[in-house]
Every structure is written in C-alpha cells, then in structure tokens.
C-alpha cells in the first residue's frame, strides 16, 4: 500500500545574512573601542525580558584571575577607550569595584549597567549591602546607565516586578543627590527604555522628552539621555512570545522593519564582549547564545578568550549573525547605547 506523505509544518527561519546580502552590506569590525564585560549572571531581580536569564539564584561570577586579565588588556590597548560593565547586576560580583578602580586609573571611560534597585536589595545570596553605590560611582566618575522601562509604575512593575518602580525612583533620587544627571556635574546618568511587550520602541527623541517632563514634574528627578532598546527575541522573552503564540509575528515585525542604515551602525562592529569565564563574543546577545568569537583560517580556527586576546586578529574576524540580529536593525536600530539610525 502506498504511503501518503504529509508535509510537516516547518519552523520559519529568518536569515539575517540574506537581508545583509540583499542590501549589499558587509558588516566588518570597525574598531575595538568598547570592551563590554558581563561579570555575573546573579541579579536581585528576575525581569520578564532579561536576555541573560539573570535571577537571585544564578551563581556564575567572573573570578579574580579573569578580572585581572581584563585590566591587563585595558592597560595594553590604548584603542580600547571604554569599559562597559554589565550582568546580572554587575555590582554583585566581588571584583566589581577592583575592575572599576583599575580601569579609571588607566583613564578608561567606564559605564556601569546599574539596575537601581540593587541599592536597596543588596546581594540576594550574601545579604551584603549596596547602599554605598551612588557615592562609589561618583568618586570613580563612572557613567551610570539604568533600565527604567517606563515613566509610569504600571509598565515598569509589569516588566521588572511589583514595587520596582517606587524603589527605582528612590534610587534615582540618591543618584541625583550625589550629582548624577545634574548640569555641569560631569556625572552622566542615562536611562534605558525597552518596550513592555512585543512591539518596537517609539522614537528615542520623543520618549526622552516624555521621560524628562514626567520624571521632573512628578518626582523632581533628572537624567541626561534616554536610550531606546528593542526587545531581543532570545531566551526569556522568546519563551514568553512562544507561550503566547506571538514569536513568528514578532519576528516578522523585526524583519519587515529591517533598516540598512541601522545595520551599518550595529554595536558589534566596535565592541568585544567578554563572558564571566573570559570567553569572547561579538555582543552580549551572542554571548547568551554561546556564539563564541572564532578567528583564524580553515584548519587553524579557534575560539577566542580574554587570555589569548589578539586585537589584530579580532579586527579580522567574521562577526557571527543569526535571526536575533534583526532586533538590532529594526526601525531606528538598537544597541547598548540606544538607537543607531
């Protein structure tokens, strides 16, 4: 008896490289201006859209040997101008303050991805207090970059947990009190917006004006710039989209909004991302997807770590792309520094 073969439904695939080809874009590295280090997956929060899947239960931490190696690399490379420290809540790594101080001594611009609430929550595993952070940041002159998903309580708590908005407002006040965001203080305080759901961010300029007006009028708070970031369809956010049957629709939204101008400005062209264990990646998203930087030619390729950091080889590398990269190229673009186009 003849068997009737029914076509099986195929998962839709989204080729980012095909989009680059169709626009004749060849995205090569431009510089190593920023070294971004993800020093812990531990966080006092467990946010709905966290691409790191951070939570109070995570235990991954950059160790002293790796942190020391990061400082060595900064010292050896004048072309690395910026150190971008992220996590998790990076302050919960025991070597965080060492890295900040050493990088500042070397004259590097240091950015800390500070979630605000850690000031009050402290370390969820050791109970260590973090109330000193505003003063520490100000003494070191670091740029503070903090997520505040919206200027209203509803969206912020929906995304980051009940009570987070009120705690974030109190934490912002403590940062303002030591000078952050104030004119002429030289202490940069930037906020990050990402949509609460499966939609693209609004115009960065328009939202920044809304945030500034609302936070000033309602809470007498100030900040410097607002960065809009697109939700990446990976890990926790991707899982929530799939549970609700919205993954394909969101991906199509990103694909349809592909902007060649935004693609040319993607952050991976001027950044190297370092994992807690020292492995190198093109960005924090590739890091979470275990897409490790590989250099060399056929037969002698190898994965790269901070321990065999070779700037000239890294500048020759092929940046690794996949479907999630559409998140960085949709609409006005998205990066750790906000819109790119």
């Amino acid at each position, binding site marked *: 008896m003849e068997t009737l073969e029914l076509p099986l439904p195929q998962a839709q695939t989204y080729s980012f490289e095909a989009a680059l080809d169709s626009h004749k874009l060849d995205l090569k590295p431009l510089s190593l201006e920023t070294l971004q280090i993800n020093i812990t997956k531990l966080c006092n929060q467990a946010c709905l859209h966290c691409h790191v899947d951070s939570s109070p239960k995570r235990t991954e931490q950059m160790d002293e040997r790796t942190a020391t190696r990061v400082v060595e690399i900064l010292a050896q490379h004048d072309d690395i101008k910026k150190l971008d420290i992220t996590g998790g809540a990076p302050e919960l790594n025991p070597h965080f303050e060492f890295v900040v101080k050493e990088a500042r001594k070397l004259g590097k611009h240091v950015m800390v991805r500070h979630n605000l609430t850690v000031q009050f929550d402290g370390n969820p595993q050791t109970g260590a207090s973090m109330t000193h952070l505003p003063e520490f940041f100000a003494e070191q002159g670091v740029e503070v970059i903090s997520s505040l998903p*919206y200027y*209203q309580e*509803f*969206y912020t708590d929906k995304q980051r947990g009940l009570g987070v908005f009120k705690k974030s407002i109190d934490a912002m006040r403590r940062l303002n009190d030591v000078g952050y965001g104030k004119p002429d203080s030289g202490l940069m305080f930037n906020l990050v917006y990402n*949509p609460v*759901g499966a*939609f*693209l*961010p*609004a*115009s960065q300029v*328009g*939202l920044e004006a*809304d945030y500034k007006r609302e936070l000033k009028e309602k809470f007498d708070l100030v900040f410097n710039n607002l960065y809009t970031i697109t939700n990446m369809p990976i890990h926790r956010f991707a899982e929530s989209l799939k549970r609700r049957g919205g993954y394909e629709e969101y991906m199509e939204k990103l694909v349809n909004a592909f902007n060649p101008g935004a693609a040319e400005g993607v952050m991976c062209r001027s950044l190297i991302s370092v994992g807690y264990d020292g492995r190198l990646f093109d960005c924090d998203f590739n890091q979470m997807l275990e897409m490790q930087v590989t250099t060399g030619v056929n037969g002698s390729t190898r994965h790269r770590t901070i321990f065999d950091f070779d700037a000239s080889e890294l500048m020759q590398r092929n940046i690794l792309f996949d479907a999630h990269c559409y998140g960085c190229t949709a609409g006005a673009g998205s990066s750790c520094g906000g819109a790119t186009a």
Partner: protein
Amino acid sequence: MNYYESKDLARFAEVGKFRKELMDKFFDYYGEATGTDGALTKREKALIGLAIAHFKQCPYCIEAYTSQCLENGSNPDQMTEAIHVASSLAAGMILVHGVQMQNVLMKHDAM
C-alpha cells in the same frame, strides 16, 4: 471561519490585484496622511486613528492602531482617553438627535 482574520491584514495590498493604480494612489495618500510627522505628530495621528478605528469598530484598524500607538510612544491611559473621546462623540451624536425628537413632539403638541 471567521469573517475577520488577523493575518488577513497583511494581505491588504492584494486588493490591488485589480486596478492596481487606484490602490497605489490610496496607499500613497494613506502613508502620507498617517505615517509622517506634519502639523500633527505621528503619535497624535495614531491616537486619532485608534479613536476612529473604535468608532467604526474595524478589527483590523483596532489591531493596527493599538500597535501604532504603542510604537509611537503612547501609553494605555492616553489610548483609553482617545477611545473615550470617540465614545462620547458617538453618545453625543445620538443625544443631539433628541432635538429632532423634540421638534416632532412639538409638532404633535406633545411637549
């Protein structure tokens, strides 16, 4: 089968399978009127679109303009106010016809 399928919104352009030049003119006009910042911002236009979508109770437009409003920076408070504007106008349109009713009542010497 439902009359309204969400995925059909993406097939809107297929209406131009016949007399494409007319549909092209519509899309040009529509894009210019709704999708650009002018004397009104795109955000304001999206809120107007959302109110009209509800007034005309078009499922396609409600879906499209809810997203448009979010992606142009509006929040649920503002969007809900917009549909209350539509709702109150609709109520007013009914109530103002009460004048017609009263005209007829007077004609019949009933008020």
